C-alpha cells in the first residue's frame, strides 16, 4: 500500500534532542486493532524517533481509532 500523507502531521519547530537532528517526513507503520497503516510522519532520520503532534492525536488519529473500534 502507498504511504499516506496526513495534512495534520506538522511538527514545525521540533527537533530530535538526542541526535540534534531536524525531523523528516518518513514512512511509519501505525497499528490499531489488527489494522496497519503506513503514514508519513515527522521522524528523526538518525534514531527513528517519531513525533505524533497534538492535533493529529486528537483529530485524525482519534477519528480513525473510533472508526476501527465501531463506536
Amino acid at each position, binding site marked *: 500500500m502507498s504511504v499516506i500523507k*496526513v495534512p495534520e502531521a506538522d511538527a514545525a519547530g521540533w527537533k530530535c534532542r538526542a541526535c540534534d537532528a531536524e525531523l523528516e517526513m518518513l514512512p511509519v507503520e501505525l497499528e490499531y486493532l489488527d489494522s496497519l497503516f503506513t503514514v508519513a510522519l515527522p521522524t528523526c532520520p538518525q534514531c527513528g524517533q517519531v513525533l505524533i503532534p497534538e492535533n493529529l492525536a486528537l483529530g*485524525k488519529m482519534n477519528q*480513525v481509532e473510533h*472508526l*476501527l473500534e*465501531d463506536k
Partner: protein
Amino acid sequence: MEQPLWERPVLRKAAGRTLRPGGFELTDRAANRMGLLPGWRVLDVGCGLGATVNRLRSRYGALAFGVEPSPGQLDAAQGAGLVRAQGHCLPFGPNSFHALFCECVLSLLPDAAQGLGEFHCVLRPGGFLALSDLCAPDADTAGNDCAARAVPLAETHGLVKAAGFEVLLLEDHSHRLRELAARLLFSSGENDVPCSCNRRGLGYYLMIAKKRG
C-alpha cells in the same frame, strides 16, 4: 455535480490503483479459491485503471480483459485488453469466459439483476464469478454515491442465485472497508468532502459463485 469518489484524486491517494477496499487481497483470495490457471479467459467488469486485469495477466497467466464505461478512467488506465463498455451490456459472446471479476462495482450498475444475467451469459458453464462489494444494513438507496447505492447482502445473494449461480463462498471483509475509510480520513484535507464509506453500518463482502450447468 461533484466527481464520484472513485474518480477523485483523494481515493487514488488512499486506495492506490485498485481504488477499492482490500486492494488485491480479495482478488488473490478469489483467484486462489477458484484455482485460476494460465490460459483462462477472464473478464474484469468495471476495471477502472486496469489494475486487476494487469494482476490477473501478470500473476496468474490469465488471458484477462477489462471493461470500463468511464473514458476518464480508461485514459488514465494502463495495460492491454481494456474495452469501453457498460457492465450490464457486455460486448462478448455467450460462454466466452472461465471467470469473471466484479469488484466494488455491482451496486454501481443501473440494474444489478440485468448485470448478473449478462455475467451469467458470457461465462462458460461451470465458470466462476468473483464478486466483492459494499453491502448496506437496510434497503435505503437515496443518493448516488457508493454508500447510498449499496443494498443488503441478502438481496444480492438472492439476485446471484436467481441469475443461475451457485454460491460457493461468502465472507465478511468489512474491516477492509473500515481500513479504506481510515486511509481516506487520514489523507483528507479540510476541503475534501468526507467519504461516505463509513456511514450507516456499511459492510464489505467477497462472494464466489459458479455458473450452474
